[in-house]
């Protein structure tokens, strides 16, 4: 176990040590202590390592993550796991604005609540939120899955492309071109798998969720409207 005291050694030293890990490494377990809400902790990691941050983090923790499993034993500031490519980010507490924004792959698990704009413009990431998500979540979300055990705020899935949204509780309002859709077998299977991987299978069952997706009226090119473009 590599233990790193952020208060003593500083953020640049941490991130450059993590960036130096290329491909396979025998330093697979890392612990970061005294994060004290610092920004960009473990951003840009590209190695199959396990990093545990003992405390709450500031902006962009685990941003652009590739391969690593990053656990936050506290709450996360704005933009956690922004543009994640692969790997996993697991937050014990809450996440601030735009968690998982633009994410292309990997799994983001938020065991508390997520604030506004969770999964905005996501492009393939999977997000599991044990609590609620805030307003304008999944705005312009393109692909990937979001599973929410609690409730969703206003304007869910506004201007949605092909991401799938599963909500167990209430939805305050749906955004433009976002509609409720039928849960078919393949959707129950997706939710079941994500609940398991998101450490939430003891809290909810797939049949408790409703599915929301794009009505596909807003983003499709329609030849009849060609003169309007």
């Amino acid at each position, binding site marked *: 176990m590599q233990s790193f005291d952020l208060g003593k050694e500083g953020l640049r030293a941490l991130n450059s040590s993590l960036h130096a890990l290329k491909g396979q490494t025998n330093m697979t377990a890392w612990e970061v202590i005294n994060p*004290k*809400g610092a920004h960009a902790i473990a951003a840009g990691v590209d190695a199959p390592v396990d990093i545990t941050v003992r405390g709450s983090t500031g902006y962009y923790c685990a941003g652009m993550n590739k391969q690593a499993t990053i656990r936050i034993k506290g*709450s996360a*500031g704005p933009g956690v796991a922004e543009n994640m490519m692969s790997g996993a980010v697991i937050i014990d507490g809450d996440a*601030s*604005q735009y968690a998982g924004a633009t994410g292309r792959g990997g799994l983001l698990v938020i065991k508390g609540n997520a*604030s*506004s704009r969770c999964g905005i413009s996501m492009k393939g990431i999977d997000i599991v939120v044990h609590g609620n998500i805030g*307003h304008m979540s999944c705005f312009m979300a393109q692909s990937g899955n979001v599973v929410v055990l609690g409730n969703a705020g206003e304007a869910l899935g506004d201007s949605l492309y092909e991401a799938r949204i599963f909500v167990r509780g209430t939805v305050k309002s749906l955004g433009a071109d976002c509609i409720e859709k039928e849960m078919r077998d393949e959707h129950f299977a997706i939710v079941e798998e994500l609940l398991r991987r998101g450490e939430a299978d003891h809290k909810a069952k797939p049949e408790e969720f409703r599915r929301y997706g794009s009505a596909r009226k807003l983003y499709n090119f329609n030849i009849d409207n060609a003169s309007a473009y």
Partner: protein
Amino acid sequence: MCGIVGLFLKDPKLEPKLGEMLTDMLITMTDRGPDSAGIAIYSGARDGLGKITIQSAHPEKDFKNLDGDLHDAIGQPVAMLVKSTHAVLEVPIGQLDAARSALSHLRPDVKVMSVGDSIEIFKEVGLPKDVARRFDVARMTGTHGIGHTRMATESAVTTMGAHPFSTGPDQCLVHNGSLSNHNGLRRELIRKGMSFETQNDTEVAAAYVSQKLKEGEDLGTALESGLDDLDGFFTFVVGTKNGFGVVRDPIACKPAVMAETDEYVAFGSEYRALVNLPGIENARVWEPEPATVYFWER
């Protein structure tokens, strides 16, 4: 971008440390606003006395014998404590208006930062740590206080453009964001009798709240009204003699984190600002909801 910090103490045992805690929080928010900084501190009102905090670009000239000159003008005892470019004048509470009016004749270049029973405001251009040191904020005591670090976007980097803004007795407001309808609102408020020192958008928000309080609304209702009438981005923290309020616009892009324990309620633009507060590990920490008014009063 700007940084906001605020502390409302529930436990009087912490009152001697208010300035020290706020200074630490303010300096942590330097990255969010390095061009100027300010602090409003509410330090227990003294029987029958009121305070005017003033600022001058030429303190040696303007503050020289000002207490004596004011005493002659209003015929009442005046105490003056000079802190760098600011001075706090203490006068009998019934004489606050008379003293303020005399001041505008005696020292026309002096700017009034705040007036009230307990409020004092200190703000200047410069790094938060330098501003805090200049006014010795760490040694101030009090019941609640609000600090701001500014990264100017909307009007010039000047002392008067720094926050907090105070537009009514014992009232102050700080802002992270920018308003888009402040020019129209300023004209309306001028028609209602408010006066303005700057072209700054935040001063309009402060005056808006002061006008609503003057019309008889309580702080919570005044902030609710602001959600309808103020257009733009904002996280506001406001202070009154007994209270401390927070409100964010409905889009809520501007960050805000709050923490509450049995001893205090704290506000920070980021969690970083709160990490050295006593008992923060076990505090209830949350993000204020958009378009929702929070306030605490003693």
